[in-house]
């Protein structure tokens, strides 16, 4: 079934067992992002150590795509420098906009390549991007605060 391209096993696993889904008591920046077309919401905390992502945690409500995507993102960027996180994020953005023509760089994106199928469902791309936008926003704020 074509739907299986969208709901890969990895996505359903992350959805059922989301990673880092418990807001840390302390943080450098906390953001709250909303997807106004569907009502999905996420709160995301970022703590930096210099220019390295020391901690990412989040809580939220949303569909399997949005929840799995932020779970995968948290795993991916933890311990990375902001420059590395940016590179991953740019690559993920390009994958989402690829309309199904790309499979994604597995070395860079790891589990996030499972979300490649989302790019064939235009209405769901914003679901996949919710957590990534929140992380981008939070990391910029955290960096500004620490400087």
């Amino acid at each position, binding site marked *: 079934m*074509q*739907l299986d391209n*969208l709901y890969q096993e990895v996505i*359903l696993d992350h959805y059922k067992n989301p990673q880092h889904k418990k807001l840390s008591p302390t943080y450098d920046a906390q953001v709250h992002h909303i997807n106004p077309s569907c*009502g*999905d919401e996420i709160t995301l905390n970022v703590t930096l150590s210099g220019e390295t992502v020391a901690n990412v945690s989040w809580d939220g409500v949303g*569909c*399997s795509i949005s929840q799995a995507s932020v779970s995968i993102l948290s795993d991916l960027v933890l311990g990375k420098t902001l420059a590395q996180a940016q590179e991953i994020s740019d690559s993920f953005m390009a994958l989402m906009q690829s309309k199904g023509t790309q499979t994604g760089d597995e070395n860079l994106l790891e589990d996030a390549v499972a979300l490649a199928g989302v790019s064939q469902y235009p209405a*769901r791309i914003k679901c996949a991007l919710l957590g990534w936008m929140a992380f981008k926003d939070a990391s910029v704020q955290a960096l500004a605060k620490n400087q």
Partner: protein
Amino acid sequence: MSFNAGAVIADFPILSRTVRDGKRLVYLDSGATSQKPTEVIDAESNFYRMHNAAVHRGAHQLAEEATDAYEGARSIVAQFLGASVNEIIFTKSATESLNLVAYAMGNAPAGNRFHLTSGDEIVITEMEHHANLIPWQQLAARTGATLKWFEVTPEGRLDLSNIDSFITSKTKVVALTHQSNVLGTINPLPEIVKRAHAAGAVVVLDACQSVPHMPINVRELEVDFLTFSGHKAVGPTGVGILWGREDFLNELPPFLTGGSMIENVTMTSATWAKAPKKFEAGVPNMAQAVGLGAALTYLQRIGMDQIFSHEKELTKYGMSALLDIPDLSIVGPTDLEMRGGTLSFTVGDIHPHDLGQYLDSQGVAVRTGHHCAWPLTRKLGVPATTRASFYLYNTTADIDVLVDGIRSAQKYFG
């Protein structure tokens, strides 16, 4: 003529197409927008093909034909609603109609019936679509008036227990929906209208979810303003209706100003044409108005009573089939009295987006999300719901596909 769903389906060309690898299209999203019968599509395109010219202007034959077609559509709408022809205003959407009333009231000078100040109150309900919430919220903010709302009970009905103390002599406007686009609830208008009028308030009715589905007569409803959108009533997009009592329309200041809506203009001042022209600045959406005329003619030929009872049967069948599904909860009234053919629900922990996506893979089109009524879904404690909404071209076979789809989705995401 008895209702024949098979014949109706044949009138809607889109219903014979397939989606997602050859699945039959099961369209259960008419609450968002309805599909169009061939005669509506033809009426709109024939206007462009044969009669296109700017209405109410020009001395040529096409301008005459266009004006006749446009004004003919206005007569059809008036007759459909049991109204006078001068009370029918074409807008681009029901959203624009509601904004028109709210902004026009905001333009009313002191001494005008519609003038609002900080001592006044605007009453709405918690089940309003954003289009009948935000215009009033913002009008209150601009004028200093107070916005109040009737709350919704856990059963999905308006809590009117305090209606007499809630609507008072301070209340200038009571704006509410006839039928909730999320819950399917039909609101008890007679009680509300009676109380509003006793308090001296005007009643503005959002009839987007009722006019396409049941017989409506504005004189019998006794409301003061009523709005609906063409595209939900098998008509084209880009056309909405505002109906208002003629004396009120004449007292209400204009919203948009410009061509067509004037009586006399100098470099420093202008006076207004009478309604409806006062509220139709600029060249209107003519082909769409003509298409709406064809749509209402079509609905009337089928019979609004027939459509209403057909949908009632579907709702009864759908309600019982849905409630048989484990973990499925209906969001809205489960009794069939005073409710229309809109069924919103949640299914266990399956997020509505995921359910909607799964149903789509089976050819079933439903709406998911907060349905532009975010305060309502928040109140009911659900971030989002899945909504199936029925219309004249749906059948129990469509509901069977929906129910099978939900059951397979439970296995898929389980």
